[in-house]
């Protein structure tokens, strides 16, 4: 029998060397051997199944087209840009695929093909690779891409972008619930919002599907529960306060919670481990900040929805939050 080494064997088959130095790498930080970027990304892919399923059920070909375009272009863009930077091949970690699917789910179905293409190239190129690739990016890549097309093609991305006469369910011909509420003061029944039989971006309409996927992610600890908890708590508190002041049209805190991309954003977008704080206190602050900005944007801005800008705003202060919440080392 050969001698067994007295230190833990590395998971891959690289030449064994004694772990003499603590490796300081960039996030996502993984502490257990079964943890890997691939495993985390696999979890996210599994968690996206209910959302994607619901999207395809409601929006049919629109959802499939949008997801396929974003997925393909994100993968191609990742391969091309990473090669341009002379880095090693990074498609296998699955992060570009996740960005593509989330982006596809967050674009309105009837939007033309070039919207998805431009959003994907911007997401991967300007949102991620320019900063140095996975782990180095300051902003959530999918949201960078979406913000770019949102500002560029406001007409296609705004209310009319969601309406189309051909679809599986009658809801698609209507304005999105948040638009209907903002522009005409019409509120949508809670049941429709919860199950997702409303119009919107393919991934965001079904609160139930987002909850199922999101709770799975939290149980697997792939997503930190503090971030969605912070967002949902803040939205409920601020929505509740708005209720107390007398909401005339019956749009309650629960409507705020189940409408738009709030739950999709809370579970799948804001929880990106790269662009959110590292400590649990920091994550709570981050979540509360996202929730606060969502409500401010919904109440006071020209946009009906604020999840994207709220996440980008809080991404920008993530390094600051990290700095505030450095845990005290023992004996300090």
């Amino acid at each position, binding site marked *: 029998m050969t001698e067994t080494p007295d230190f833990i064997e590395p998971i891959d088959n690289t030449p064994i060397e004694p772990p003499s130095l603590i490796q300081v790498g960039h996030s996502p930080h993984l502490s257990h051997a079964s943890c890997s970027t691939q495993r985390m990304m696999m979890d996210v892919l599994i968690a996206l199944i209910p959302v994607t399923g619901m999207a395809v059920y409601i929006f049919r070909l629109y959802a499939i087209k949008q997801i396929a375009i974003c997925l393909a272009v994100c993968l191609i863009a990742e391969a091309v840009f990473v090669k341009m930077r002379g880095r090693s091949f990074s498609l296998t970690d699955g992060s570009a695929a996740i960005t593509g699917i989330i982006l596809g789910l967050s674009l309105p179905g009837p939007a*033309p093909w*070039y919207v998805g293409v*431009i959003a994907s190239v911007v997401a991967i190129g*300007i949102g991620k690779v320019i900063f140095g690739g996975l782990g180095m990016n300051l902003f959530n890549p999918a949201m960078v891409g979406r913000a*770019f097309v949102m*500002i*560029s*093609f*406001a007409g*296609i991305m705004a209310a009319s972008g969601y309406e189309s006469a051909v679809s599986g369910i009658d809801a698609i011909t209507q304005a999105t619930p948040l638009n209907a509420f903002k522009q005409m003061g019409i509120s949508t029944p809670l049941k429709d919002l919860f199950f997702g039989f409303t119009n919107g971006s393919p991934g965001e309409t079904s609160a139930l599907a987002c909850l199922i996927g999101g709770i799975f992610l939290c149980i697997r600890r792939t997503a930190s529960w503090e971030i969605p908890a912070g967002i949902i708590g803040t939205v409920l508190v601020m929505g509740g306060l708005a209720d107390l002041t007398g909401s005339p049209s019956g749009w309650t805190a629960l409507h705020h919670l189940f409408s738009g991309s709030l739950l999709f954003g809370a579970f799948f977008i804001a929880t990106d481990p790269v662009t959110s704080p590292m400590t649990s206190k920091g994550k709570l602050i981050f979540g509360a900040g996202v929730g606060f900005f969502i409500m401010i944007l919904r109440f006071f801005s020209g946009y009906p929805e604020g999840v994207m800008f709220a996440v980008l705003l809080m991404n920008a202060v993530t390094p600051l939050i990290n700095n505030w919440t450095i845990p005290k080392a023992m004996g300090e």
Partner: protein
Amino acid sequence: MADQPTALERFAQGILPENPVYRQLLGLCPTLAVTNSVKGAIIMGAAVLFVLLCANAMISLIRNLLKPHLRIVVFTLTIAAFVTIVDRFLAAYMYQMSKDLGPYIPLIIVNCIIICRCEVCASKQPVFTAAADAAGQSLGFTLGLVSIASVREILGTGMLLGFRVMPAAWPDWVIMVLPPGAFLTFGLLLGAVNWVVAKKSASGKKHQGAS
């Protein structure tokens, strides 16, 4: 004092090797603010050309009278006089353009390119060299501005100098004519220029090593 560059060298340096926008990163305020149309960029470049030429010539003429501790004040006052001329000229003859460029014409007074050229060249060299330097630097500045403005105007409106260059179905990338478009375009072009320069100097070194 070390040998000063000749007039021709000064002129050539300003255009590419020491391009104010891409190599010195000076005068970025107008670079970002007025580059959403090529026309605005050209007018801005012309305004800078006039001010820099006059200021450089004037400073060069009085260079022997300058007191070291007062020179910056003298530079600024000289520049301000010529900027006022440009500003009033535009307001009188190109009213719409003057409105479009807004505060960025008066702001030429504090444009670092001009103070930098007065300090580096005009306060040390004769009039002809100073004028050649001014022409080279302003051409370089205009080149930088027009390159950014072309990208932004084509992507943002599908037009160039008001003429349609993209197919009629071109979807305008509105973000490109807004401030974020300026930062993105400038950053990407700057990266491209740096990449070309790095490539050139690397191949130059290889060449020297081989010979």
